[in-house]
């Protein structure tokens, strides 16, 4: 109840804010006056609408979303675990920190191609490729959070012989929440950037695939429409899932 009451008043602002953004875009497009290269919302929205009602978009959108979801789950799980392990033990960090740096800086293209070549051209390879690209990023962010954590609380937990799971749940995770939130948000964005390449290189559907095609056809309006469809989904995820989660996780901050 209380939560919802705090969430809803934001809605008008969010809508107004997004409308302002669209308006800005319209002005920019109008000022550039080049409907081919800089199509305004009046061109892109109908394109998107057509794709939506014709049902063309749904299979691609859902294919991409499936990949994003699976990769996101995998990457967050492994990334958080690795980050906590490395941040929690100086020894582990000294030994495996360099591996993380290497993993972080291996180009996405290389991971993707190698996944396709070794796992095969299938959905698993695509998901593995995306996850592998994201894991180091999440790990690095969580490691940073671990290093910065308050050890007094851990001491307290140790003294009271709290179990490892209780410690994780009540001490570590809440303390790392800002880093987990940040990596979830930044991570979704990263995944999206990589899924695009993954779909370009080895899949025959998905929004990324569409965007590349439209780009090859030099159909900028199509590119934007597809991108917009995904952005819309991500906005929904943000306000339907991440924002309430973040709010829940920081309830205690209210003064």
């Amino acid at each position, binding site marked *: 109840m209380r939560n919802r009451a705090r969430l809803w008043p934001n809605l008008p602002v969010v809508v107004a804010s997004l409308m302002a953004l669209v308006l800005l875009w319209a002005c920019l497009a109008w000022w550039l006056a080049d409907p081919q*290269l800089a199509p305004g919302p009046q061109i892109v929205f109908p394109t998107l609408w057509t794709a939506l009602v014709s049902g063309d978009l749904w299979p691609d959108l859902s294919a991409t979303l499936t990949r994003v979801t699976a990769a996101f789950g995998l990457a967050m799980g492994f990334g958080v675990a690795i980050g906590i392990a490395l941040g929690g033990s100086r020894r582990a960090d000294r030994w495996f920190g360099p591996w993380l740096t290497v993993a972080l800086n291996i180009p996405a293209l290389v991971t993707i*191609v190698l996944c*396709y*070549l070794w796992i*095969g*051209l299938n959905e698993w390879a695509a998901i593995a490729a995306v996850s592998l690209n994201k894991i180091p990023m999440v790990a690095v962010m969580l490691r940073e959070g671990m290093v910065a954590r308050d050890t007094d609380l851990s001491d307290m937990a140790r003294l009271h012989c709290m179990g490892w799971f209780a410690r994780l749940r009540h001490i570590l995770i809440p303390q790392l929440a800002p880093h987990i939130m940040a990596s979830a948000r930044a991570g979704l964005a990263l995944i999206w950037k990589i899924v695009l390449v993954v*779909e*370009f*290189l*080895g899949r*025959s*559907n998905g929004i*990324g*695939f569409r965007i*590349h*095609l439209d*780009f*090859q*056809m*030099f*159909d900028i309006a199509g590119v934007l429409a597809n991108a917009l469809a995904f952005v819309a989904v991500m906005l929904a995820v943000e306000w339907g899932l991440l924002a309430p989660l973040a709010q829940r996780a920081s309830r205690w901050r209210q003064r």
Partner: protein
Amino acid sequence: ADLPVLKVAALEGGTVNWELDTIKHYGLDRENGFTLEVVPVAGKSGSDIMLQGGAVDAIVTDWFWVARMRATGEDYRFIPYSKAVGGLLVAQDSPAKTLADLDGKKIGIAGGPVDKSWLILRAYAEQADGFDLAGKTEQVFGAPPLIMKAALSGEVDGAINFWHFGAKMEAAGMRELVSVGDAASALGLSPETPLLGYVLSGDLVESKPELASGLVAASRAAKGKLATEDEAFARLRPIMNAKSNAQFAALKAGWLAGVPAPGPVDEAAADKMLRLMAKLGGEKLVGGATSLPEGTFLTN
């Protein structure tokens, strides 16, 4: 009804699709004893991986790639699809008359530094005018649509693009300064040598020769239909992404001009071309293949 399936990866909306769509539409695949399945890809890099990964049976690429693979011991075969080449385009009002006039100017190139057209034009400039095209101009490599835009907006003074973009650019009012075909002839290369083709793995050709010959026949039949029946091309207009009648006409003409002559490929001419490319493009382009490896072109 359970004919063997042949999976071909093709750029969705690309020119190859025109032929494949025609094959499927007129049932030319079944007539020739197989079922064609088109696997859409979003780029050339993707199709390479798909062929190597065994996700498709055939892709469309140039035979240099095949030569290069064969030189490293990987068995692939090439079936001619098109000999279409573009040219170097400049703005209608450009003062340039020959390649040498581009001294100090910017050239946009879609295929990268080892693009075949670019290499041929370099050799041609050297031979015709003693002009070092690569050294005396500034090159901008980029994605085809970006090169098209840059050329149309005058950001680059000349542009070498894939032929279907070239056709659109010409339809938009650019003119051809030098055609790659002419340049090739001047260099003593045969303009009849097809560059692009279907590439199949050797295993497939050995184990199911009827599939390969079926593809050859179906391709030929489709080419014939498209050349002779106007409605066959008109049918394709929606997927051709032509914005105007002029573009449609240019694309159609360009495509038909690229249809290679029937019959086996002139291997001597191809070998000559490969040697020239090896000299210009270096190992980057041809890998270990300094002369045409045996069996590059599928003969049946």
